[in-house]
């Protein structure tokens, strides 16, 4: 009983500090989702509509970022590439020495590889007639992709995108290795000083679970909001 009380006490005492990590964790996920979206869409378009060279480039990109463990990438970027880039004066406006920045870049570029494949599948699933009709009206391919293809493909991508969200959420915990004060790193440091790893890990797990639940809820709402009336396709989560 005494053990339980002291464990609960340790978790309670650490709660405000660990809750503070939620902001960093949420920032990592949102930043990485955004970077992944911004790079993932053009990668997908290049993969589907590009020539042999761009297809190969995208395939190489996806292969690289899916193949190298995130932990290795974090070290590579934080201790290697970013340190090197920080010596270029023109890039001084970027927070290159920040662990958070490195983590967002790494998680974002990795997510771009995965997201590009989500979008690619969605684009491919659209009937070929959509592009034909757009072309027949005199739209350039670029206009057709912007006005006709992507608005439909992105809607179809939301269910798979929720999946990507929960994967990123878990991967974001790795950012503790380069000193980002997110939930996991705060949990570890408190656990080390209080010698109460079990309750603190449970607390961290609960927080991650909460973030997953909240994020999926938001995405589900988004999916319902942009759903095309009467359209049979409805995502399942």
């Amino acid at each position: 009983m005494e053990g339980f009380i002291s464990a609960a006490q340790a978790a309670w005492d650490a709660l405000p500090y660990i809750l503070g990590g939620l902001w960093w964790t949420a920032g990592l996920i949102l930043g990485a989702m955004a970077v992944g979206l911004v790079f993932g869409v053009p990668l997908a378009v290049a993969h589907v509509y590009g020539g042999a060279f761009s297809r190969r480039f995208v395939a190489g990109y996806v292969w690289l970022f899916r193949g190298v463990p995130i932990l290795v990438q974090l070290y590579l970027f934080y201790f290697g590439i970013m340190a090197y880039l920080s010596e270029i004066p023109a890039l001084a406006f970027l927070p290159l020495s920040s662990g958070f920045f490195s983590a967002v870049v790494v998680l974002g570029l990795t997510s771009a590889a995965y997201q590009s494949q989500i979008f690619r599948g969605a684009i491919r699933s659209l009937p070929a007639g959509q592009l034909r009709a757009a072309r027949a009206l005199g739209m350039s391919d670029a206009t057709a992709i912007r006005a006709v293809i992507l608005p439909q493909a992105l809607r179809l991508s939301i269910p798979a995108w929720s999946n990507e969200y929960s994967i990123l959420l878990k991967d974001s915990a790795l950012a503790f290795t380069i000193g980002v004060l997110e939930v996991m790193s705060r949990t570890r440091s408190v656990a080390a000083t209080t010698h109460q790893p079990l309750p603190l890990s449970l607390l961290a797990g609960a927080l991650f679970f909460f973030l997953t639940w909240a994020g999926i809820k938001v995405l589900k709402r988004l999916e319902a909001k942009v759903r095309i009336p009467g359209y049979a396709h409805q995502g399942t989560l």
Partner: protein
Amino acid sequence: MDDTVILRVENIVKTIGGQRILDDVSLSVKKGRLKVLIGPSGAGKSTLLSCINFLSPPDSGTISLDGRPVNGKSRKELLALRQQVGMIFQDFNLFDHLTAMENVRVALIKVKGLDKRAATNRAMEELARVGLADKPSLYPAQLSGGQKQRVSVARALAMDPKVLLLDEPTSALDPELIGEVLTVIRDLADEGMTMVMATHQISFSASLADEFLFMEKGRIVERGTPAVLLARDSGSRTQSFCAKLNELAGDAAVCEIAS
């Protein structure tokens, strides 16, 4: 009647996967006339239509609009050609994420550069023209096949095309919905729209077309006025094809053969 040739198609050859789909096809369409392409499936009717607006570029041959040959290698000329040549597809191809009105409006904004308001007004006019003034905010999935096809006609008309290409516009429709689309096409013909239409609706188009082109194996094997080709004693391919369609259709004769 105006005798200006609007669209001239000369010696089109198209090979897909080693198979010759179009073999030296030529035709010309005068202003305000309707040419009808008839023939069995696989004859090359659809391919011919999509060669005209370069959705599937011909291997050789010339397409001229208003007397000017189109350079298919120039992106600019291609986009300009497609703006002036409307196309109606068998399976409608409405943009699924846009309402009926937005389907008609989108190219006015994105291609013609109209502002939103002007484009909306124009779109509403065109919807009214095809009898859908009361359905602007419905999505394709909420429309019947006949309504979808009428929206797609409105979408093409909004671009002020010089020629309209219709690729079996009623073939994907339930029988009871064919009539509303044919009515729209008849109105267009009466208003003097220049059209090339592939169809199996032979008796319908016989009253409107100035020429029937019978296609088989990538060639135009017969051409002439509907009255001549459909005459009972003409011995034409068109006539026997028509008789065969009637046989398949049973009581609902798709074409009447002039006696």
